């Protein structure tokens, strides 16, 4: 046996360090900075806030004064719930975001599962072609695809869908398709579908065909086989797909901004407004921190339930 090399010279150490360094630099560090801003006081300056740790005004040195007023505002909104005339701006945005993200996830699952199932069951020779077709939209810019939806959904006579419906004589006046929640949902489902299909496909393609034959042999009808064998065994794929869709969907900014008009307040837009026009960086940072905390809960739940299944599939 050769002597073990010091750990700093071992390749394995550096390969292991890479993801940790990445997380530290691009997640933990920015997150700490944002938390710092969220505890700051708004100020007319560049940057427009006074950090909690700052030079004392009387010059007596450095003082630590975390400003909790942004969190307080969120707290007040919760406290004022149910009162007359309450305008829970941020809570409504959170609610809208979670609701839309949930709807997007559910719809992507309902549409994506048959997609993934079909591809996984297709002949091996055409599987890759079908997968390529799922990924094809990624070849054009995301922004361009959202703009294309604006052209499709446009609420005036110029909108392609409205043109078609009027041309077919189904309607007389154009339908208000754009700038509402439906348009946002359509755009989000369209954009996130591949993120549901790919992990589901990766899971379903591994499903042992003989398990389905065994179920059939034991007297299960095709639907029963699907519900009692295929579906439970694809749970980890469903969880992975749901996470890939739900988490980015909650923070989605571009789609509600372009397709939702002023109607659809989502949390991403609130953050944008506070960082931009309102110049209230502490508030924007607070909203972002709370969003991350809100997302950690479902991630933990998802992780738990997929870990409990670990080791089941050979």
């Amino acid at each position: 046996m050769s002597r073990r090399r010091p750990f700093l010279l071992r390749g394995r150490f550096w390969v292991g360090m890479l993801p940790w360094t990445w997380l530290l630099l691009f997640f933990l560090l920015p997150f700490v900075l944002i938390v710092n801003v969220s505890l700051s006081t708004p100020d007319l300056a560049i940057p427009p806030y006074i950090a909690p740790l700052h030079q004392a005004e009387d010059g007596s040195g450095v003082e630590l004064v975390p400003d909790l007023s942004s969190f307080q505002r969120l707290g007040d909104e919760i406290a004022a719930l149910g009162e007359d005339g309450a305008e829970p701006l941020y809570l409504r945005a959170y609610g809208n975001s979670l609701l839309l993200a949930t709807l997007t996830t559910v719809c992507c699952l309902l549409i994506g599962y048959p997609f993934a199932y079909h591809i996984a069951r297709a002949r091996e020779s055409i599987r890759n072609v079908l997968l390529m077709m799922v990924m094809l939209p990624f070849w054009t810019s995301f922004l361009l695809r959202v703009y294309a939806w604006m052209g499709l959904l446009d609420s005036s006579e110029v909108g392609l869908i409205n043109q078609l419906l009027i041309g077919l004589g189904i309607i007389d006046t154009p339908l208000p398709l754009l700038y509402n929640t439906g348009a946002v949902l359509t755009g989000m489902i369209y954009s996130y579908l591949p993120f549901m299909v790919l992990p589901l496909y990766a899971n379903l393609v591994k499903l042992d065909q003989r398990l389905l034959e065994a179920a059939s042999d034991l007297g299960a009808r095709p639907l029963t086989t699907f519900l009692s064998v295929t579906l439970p065994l694809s749970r980890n794929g469903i969880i992975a797909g749901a996470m890939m869709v739900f988490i980015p969907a909650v923070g989605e900014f571009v789609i509600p901004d372009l397709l939702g008009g002023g109607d659809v307040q989502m949390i991403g837009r609130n953050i944008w407004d506070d960082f931009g026009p309102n110049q209230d960086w502490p508030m924007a940072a607070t909203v972002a921190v709370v969003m991350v905390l809100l997302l950690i809960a479902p991630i933990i739940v998802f992780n738990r339930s997929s870990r409990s299944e670990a080791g089941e599939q050979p």
Partner: protein
Amino acid sequence: MVAQQQDSGAAYLRIEGVSKRFGDNRVVRDVSLTIARKEIFALLGSSGCGKSTLLRMLAGLETPSAGRIVLDGEDLATVQPHHRPTNMMFQSYALFPHLTVEDNVAFGLRQERPKLARDAIAARVGKMLDLVQMQRYARRKPHELSGGQQQRVALARSLAKEPKLLLLDEPLAALDKKIRQETQLELVHLIERVGVTCIMVTHDQEEAMTMADRIGVMSDGVLLQVGTPGEIYEHPNCRFTAEFIGETNMFHGRLGPQGVACADFPAPIAVSPLADHADGSEVSVSVRPERVLLSREAPGALEGGLNSAAGEVVDIAYLGSYSVYHVRLSGGRTVTASVPSARWGDAAPPTWGDAVWVSWKAPAGVVLSR
């Protein structure tokens, strides 16, 4: 004896002229077979010979391209797999990984229509797990079990619905050799206790001979020979069967009045009886190694019907109770003889390089024309 069994009214399962083709590939060719109630039948062949496809057609997982399958008077052609009175134990078991042992066994019972009562299912599952001695593991998941335990659960699952026909696809191939041998007879006893008619598929001739009442040898989609293990071994009807089942010395030559004239044996090989083979036809003679006698001296004067040749020991495999000797004849041909260790008494057995004689009596050679 076989014919008698087939002609009696006990034909529980009748496979009539069944073929299966995938595109141009004829995987099963015109197989006809009858199987009696409570019989354990083994389809034996190397991989790709069509035996698994035949089994899958019985289970309804494949549809025959031609022919009929009649089980207990019912033509199975149009019966969907989930309605068939057959159950299969799959190769490497196909246990549902997300269900516990008892839920795996209960799976088939839960599909029964009209629905079975909950406690009726529980009682049946308990009985099945008792049968295979797996009660203690009822709440385990399959991945927490050893290979042998998984095999028993799979058996319990396929017996739970009391099928008319139990199908076993390579039942023991997933097990280690030692456990496999222990399990063979255990499995036979279980099947006999339940009294179910059983067809198994295996590539392992030892497994087939240990477990089955009768064996069907398949090659290239064709059912070559059907018989008891003894019949198949002692009276193979073709070269493939003779070589596939056990070891043999195969000689090729032309049949003449003195016997079979072979290029690699000094004298024509005497065989008996010389029925149903025309003089002058190309035939093979199969001689099992245990029928070949080995001696240091020339065997007694060449009495009628004794074949003998001198040679030299080139290899010995000592296997305890017997040894396999490889003897090279003067012409270069090697003959194997398996010799009981007790054969030599107190004398030293022949060793590498010794000059010896091999011989066998005429009836030991089986004449094969295909």
